């Protein structure tokens, strides 16, 4: 397979027993995973084509324990791979043989809820959905909603600056976090940001969000919570061409309407998701938009009427409004299980590039050409309002040649995204998956500058070191 890992440090491997013994002294029973069987659960994430067995897995129950483990690893020059739930699609949480995984999944408590200030303090291993569930009784929620929200942690969301279907209106992780507690590589604990809307000095919080576990281990976070709208209603719009759907999206925004969500699916994706969720998606169209609006019934009626009028001008073929909470749930279930549903019909790799939305029809056509060129198939789901594409390249994992082709097709698609003015990743992160494509988007000076900033936090490249930056050119200062 195409993506390289650094050669494990033989000296560290030779010292494994001593390292494990040292870690065992720092953690309570159950806090350290050492047996090969149990370690196997941590050898990959949702980028399952690659796996590496870690040296050991530490599961601290407190910031103090996490700090003790970090200090120990630092003193012994042992590499560390931070981990939340391991749902990264970019291989961001995949370990390496000479590294200790530090997982925060045991730290999953709500520490404080403040409805007056609309903030909440949580331990970093809490799942994304559990945050919303903890404040739902008062009508509040935490806005960024990755489709993996049942499993993924706020730590991982911070690591990847994750997004979700409703980010068009509410923003992504970085727009919804006010502060973190973070353990630095040498075990020092720092508070970055707080519970106010801005913090003094440089925006280190903005730097930490999306840093993919390279700057420290986040153990707590203060998040913004919002009062949910009175109601929400998704509507399905079926089009005969993706050009029409794309033009309708542009016209809706042009009319001054920012729906909460505008999700696009092409025909293969519609078929896969409908078979799975029975959401009532139209099967006789080439492109489907799920557009959700919020507010009171009258407000939703009003906004939807405007949207429908625009869609009609762009030749919409079917318009189907959700008439009940159950229908709404089914519509979103279909969209949010797009990856899982696809996984039932084929193996896939999920791309995540972003493009200027004006280039949509052209890019979709070229994606189709690229994938066909490799003799493969593709299903497209994406966040239409912001141009964040998720082409799912389908292949057979048991056929090494096909797997290789899928990887190549994916890389070509990402090169295309950059070529038209977009980027390699909109919300899943670079991890190992896009690491070797970073030179496509950035010049050496751009990457050097990022690495110099990285070096402020981790001179010795101990933190998640195989990720993000191409292996062949690495600097710290």
């Amino acid at each position, binding site marked *: 397979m195409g993506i390289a890992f650094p050669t494990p440090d033989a000296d560290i491997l030779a010292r494994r027993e001593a390292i494990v013994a040292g870690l065992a002294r720092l953690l309570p029973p159950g806090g350290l995973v050492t047996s090969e069987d149990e370690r196997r659960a941590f050898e990959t994430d949702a980028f399952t084509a690659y796996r590496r067995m870690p040296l050991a897995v530490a599961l601290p129950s407190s910031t103090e324990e996490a700090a003790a483990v970090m200090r120990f690893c630092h003193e012994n020059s042992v590499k560390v791979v931070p981990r939340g739930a391991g749902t990264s699609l970019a291989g961001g949480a995949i370990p390496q043989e000479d590294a200790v995984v530090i997982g925060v999944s045991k730290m999953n408590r709500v520490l404080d809820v403040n409805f007056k200030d609309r903030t909440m303090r949580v331990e970093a291993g809490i799942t994304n959905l559990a945050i919303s569930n903890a404040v739902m009784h008062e009508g509040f929620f935490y806005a960024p909603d990755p489709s993996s929200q049942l499993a993924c942690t706020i730590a991982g969301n911070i690591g990847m600056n994750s997004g979700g279907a409703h980010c068009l209106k509410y923003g992504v992780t970085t727009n919804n976090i006010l502060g973190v507690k973070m353990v630095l590589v040498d075990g020092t604990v720092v508070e970055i940001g707080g519970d106010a809307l801005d913090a*003094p000095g440089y925006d*280190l919080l903005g730097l930490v969000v999306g840093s993919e576990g390279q700057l420290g281990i986040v153990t707590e976070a203060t998040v913004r919570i919002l009062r949910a709208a009175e109601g929400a209603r998704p509507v399905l719009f079926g089009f005969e061409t993706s050009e029409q759907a794309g033009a309708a999206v542009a016209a809706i*925004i042009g009319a*001054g309407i920012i729906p909460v969500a505008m999700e696009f699916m092409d025909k293969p994706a519609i078929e896969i998701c409908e078979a799975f969720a029975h959401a009532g998606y139209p099967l006789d169209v080439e492109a489907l938009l799920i557009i959700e609006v919020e507010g009171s019934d009258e407000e939703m009626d009003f906004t939807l009427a405007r949207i429908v009028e625009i869609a009609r001008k762009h030749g919409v073929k079917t318009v189907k409004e959700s008439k009940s909470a159950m229908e709404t749930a089914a519509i979103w279930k279909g969209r949010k299980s797009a990856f899982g549903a696809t996984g039932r019909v084929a193996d896939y790799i999920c791309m995540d590039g*972003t493009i200027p939305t004006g280039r949509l029809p052209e890019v979709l056509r070229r994606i189709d050409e690229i994938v066909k060129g490799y003799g493969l198939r593709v299903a497209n789901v994406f966040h239409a309002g912001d141009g964040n594409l998720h082409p799912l390249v389908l292949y057979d994992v048991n056929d090494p040649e096909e797997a290789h082709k899928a990887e190549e097709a994916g890389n070509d698609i990402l090169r295309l995204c950059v070529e038209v003015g977009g980027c390699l990743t909109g919300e899943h992160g670079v991890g190992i998956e896009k690491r070797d494509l970073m030179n496509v988007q950035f010049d050496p*000076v751009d990457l050097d500058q990022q690495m110099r900033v990285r070096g402020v936090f981790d001179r010795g490249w101990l933190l998640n070191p195989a990720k993000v930056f191409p292996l062949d050119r690495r600097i710290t200062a």
Partner: protein
Amino acid sequence: MTAVSEPTSESELAEAVAEARAARMPLAVQGRGTKSGIGRPAQTAATLSTVRMSGITLYEPAELVIGAKAGTPVAEIEAALAARGQMLPFEPIDYRPLLGSEGGPTVGGIAAGNLSGPRRISAGACRDSLIGVRFVNGRGEIVKNGGRVMKNVTGLDLVKLMAGSWGTLGVMSEVIFKVLPVAETTATLVLHGLDDARAIEALSTALGSPFEVTGAAHLPLGIDRVPTTLVRIEGFAPSVAYRSGRLRALLKPFGTGDVLEGAPAADLWRRVRDASFLAEPRDRAVWRVSVAPSKAAAALARLRGEGEIRHFYDWGGGLVWIALPAAGDAGAAAIRGALAGTGGHATLVRAPAEIRAAVDVFEPQSPALMTITEGVKASLDPDRLFNPGRLYAGL
């Protein structure tokens, strides 16, 4: 008089920085200098200005994105956006009324100051809308980060570092912002006679409602010395009518109040944005305090007895502007003392240079964060060329 360099292109800018580096000549980095009174007085030998790097480089209304060279006047950006019914979401502060400065602020300056107005509570800060930058670092290299698409997590987010760095990390040559449509209608609910604590409670009630408040301010001295509390909602006309009705009902326990619309309301929000209530008398020092709203009124109460103080709240109580006599430390110890234990922090935005040289203008940070801060500075500007000492002494 110090030498002023005004490059006309990014490559000239990079050359100017490289020359300054070779000559070990620290630079005052600025656009038009309307905010040069903010920060510690920097020890610089020359001024580097972006004013002659001007012009919109990209505007795609349907993609909600605008890009411009750093020296472009904010007014030019706002006019271009207004012509297409759009705006910068974060309502950037115009510091001229408060600082008494002249000239048109540049778009690079609002990015460098992370200047965000009343709509910060709903649409995010300047740093949330800033999606791409190009800048020249202290090595004279042209660096890009972020881009023109609004979802982008490729690599480390240096865009955030540049926002609010006050020209101390690099000289921005181009900035790209996410924009939003201007709302069709705006209404402002006005409540009268509430004390600070009650007013903030009212604002929290409004902000914790489903009715999408986009401005929440309290003026203890009001307009005619009657305390005035403001709640703004924006959107399509029927929706604004509906929500303002619901909000009035919800806020009944705080008084009946009335509704303000049109130009008078817009003018009032502009004054909240620019803190122009505190512009006069000009000899007062002005502080900007950021704190969790529920802790704001008590912190202010602890300041009573510190002499003649005037203040008002924005961001639902989370932003407090305070004016007091510019004597001694201009109230630094008292204000920071009042904030102790709240997690809040204070920035001195207006004071004579002698005071700004003597007190911490920006909130001091923990030793661990200061070490990181120094490291970040060194990683971008190893020779401390840009605005040395403006943010923190020795930085």
